[in-house]
């Protein structure tokens, strides 16, 4: 297994993994290495798995698909170069990718200029607002996460909160969106603290929030090690208020990193993928989620993450559109993509329209709580 991964990584460094005699070329630029590797790595693995599966089952309308995947290492400049190379040299008909908002913005301008349909795997709302002709995306926006969290706060009578946010792109963006949307839900933010990516201890910031008069709950936008340390420090200080995390930590490894005891009671908006095992049998997403989860875990021997799920959904959307378009013409694929209706993915159920290229609503988020080291749904 390790050897296979190493071989895969080597091939990725070389640039491309090619299948013989393919008929339709699908391009991808992901951050499989570098600082955003925890996003791009499962995304790349997901695409490899799905493409193999698709071709083994006869491809699309009898035509095989070839995946041309580049690793941009999270560097927007490289992402732009690769996007251009995908379009001009590899002559792909569509692009999936942009693990981060930064790389997405680079690929986006190439896709728009060249008229190539593009599905992004990054979070920021700017990607699809304003709507661009050829650009779609699969993950919910950070603004939606804020709205989901504030809805839950409203339900619990929480009106005054403190925020502690990561200073990275995701944390800063979500912090701004939450501040922006808080008024709509009658939530007042009394304290705003931050931490940087590799901080080892957040007790000073949390002590400040703790001693702020009137705070009823704490919200922590961010991902990586920060939120796990915040959660541990929260328990260390014995702060007796609800702690809300973002969907940036929605994976089992978060519970492991924060520790089962410290993570007890943490609430966050997550996707159905995270609670595949406890989804109701009649849940519309049950089938899609369980199929992806079991296939991925069998193939790679590691737990699925929400991020791999974004790639899964993008791939399904793209191949579904290709099948319906009936041709490998880029603008026909774009039109078919925009006409996507009720496609069930792991993140939610997608329905695109000319003025909505995200196609998800708040119901795609599930409000989760960690109890006894396990995810439970509290919707």
């Amino acid at each position, binding site marked *: 297994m390790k050897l296979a991964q190493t071989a895969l990584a080597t091939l990725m460094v070389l640039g491309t993994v090619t299948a013989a005699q393919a008929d339709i070329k699908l391009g991808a630029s992901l951050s499989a*290495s570098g600082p955003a590797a925890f996003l791009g*790595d499962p995304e790349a693995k997901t695409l490899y798995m799905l493409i193999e599966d698709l071709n083994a089952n006869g491809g699309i309308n009898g035509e095989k698909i070839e995946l041309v995947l580049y690793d941009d290492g999270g560097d927007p400049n490289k992402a732009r170069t690769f996007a251009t190379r995908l379009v001009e040299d590899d002559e792909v008909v569509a692009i999936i990718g942009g693990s981060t908002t930064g790389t997405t913005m680079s690929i986006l301008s190439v896709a728009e200029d060249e008229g190539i349909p593009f599905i992004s795997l990054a979070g920021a709302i700017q990607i699809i607002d304003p709507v661009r002709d050829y650009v779609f995306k699969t993950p919910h926006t950070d603004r939606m996460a804020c709205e989901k969290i504030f809805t839950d706060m409203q339900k619990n009578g929480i009106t005054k909160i403190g925020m502690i946010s990561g200073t990275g792109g995701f944390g800063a963006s979500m912090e701004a969106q939450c501040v922006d949307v808080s008024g709509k839900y009658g939530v007042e933010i009394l304290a705003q*603290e931050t931490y940087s990516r*590799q901080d080892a201890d957040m007790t000073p*910031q949390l002590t400040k929030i703790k001693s702020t008069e009137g705070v009823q709950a704490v919200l922590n936008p961010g991902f990586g090690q920060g939120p796990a340390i915040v959660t*541990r420090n929260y328990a260390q200080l014995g702060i007796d208020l609800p702690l809300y995390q973002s969907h940036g930590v929605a994976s089992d490894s978060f519970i492991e*990193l924060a520790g089962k005891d410290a993570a007890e009671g943490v609430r966050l908006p997550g996707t159905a993928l995270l609670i595949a095992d406890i989804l109701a049998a009649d849940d519309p997403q049950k089938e899609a989620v369980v199929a992806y989860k079991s296939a991925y875990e069998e193939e790679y021997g590691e737990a699925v993450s929400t991020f791999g799920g974004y790639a899964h959904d993008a791939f399904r959307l793209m191949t579904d559109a290709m099948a319906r378009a009936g041709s490998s013409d880029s603008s026909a694929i774009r039109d078919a993509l925009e006409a996507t209706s009720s496609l069930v993915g792991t993140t939610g159920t997608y329905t695109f329209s000319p003025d909505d290229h995200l196609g998800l609503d708040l119901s795609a988020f599930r409000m989760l709580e960690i109890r006894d080291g396990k995810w439970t749904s509290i919707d």
Partner: protein
Amino acid sequence: MDALMQFVYSGLTVGAVYALVALGFTIIYNASDVVNFAQGEFVMLGGMITVFAFDAGLPLPLAALMAIVATAAIGVALNKFAIEPARGAPVVSLIIITIGASILIRGTAQVIFDKQLHRLPAFSGDDPIHLLGATILPQSLWVIGGAFAIFIGLWLFFTRTLLGKAVLATANNRLAAQLVGINTGFVMTLSFALSAAIGALAGVLVTPVTLVSYDVGVGLALKGFAAAMLGGMGNPKGALVGGLLLGLFEALTAGYISSQYKEAVAFVVILAVLFVMPQGLFGQKTTERV
């Protein structure tokens, strides 16, 4: 008052992490005048190897020992294959070699291990200790204790042992050291092994607090370097005090001013110190004879 104590505990915990990295810097600096920027990678390796050995079923002490020995071997290899062949090159070139080595180690680690975050269980549980109205985690005491223990060990080594003095002599004047019969090649090998081992031990101690992934080395090296500069490069006492002070500055700034300015304030203080005393708090004044 409770808040102040909490800030102090936080500062000491974080400061001890910086001090551990800074202590690693001192040995190689003392032996060769080189600032080894792969020091952060040694810390990362210590944490990562322990995590993987521990997950594979080894008991924690054995996993840690394995990580320390393996990292020391990598330190020796770094000296043998990268630093020694470039002997005679200017110090700046050697420093650039260590930066290259750190990139190589990081890249290799991401292929051999993985790109995820990992943690080790805390050595003595996760129950916070209540002390003077604030709380501190037992693992923080391990980190602080570890920093002091290594400091004392190094201080004794450099001042009380013949070998330690040989290291200082080699740094001072390699040719003169050779002439009085010091095996300078061995001193260099020993320094790299020791420095890597200390880095790895630091990694084992801090992983339960800070978590570890293949790319934590860069940040740690930067902060450890800043701590070492503040205290005075090459002086174990300076490394310890510099690290703890840097941690305290950060925690107090985050607590009393704003977490936005935490790092800025810490670096402003360092710059201010270096303007007044360029050799750092405990560095020795040296004069170059022209």
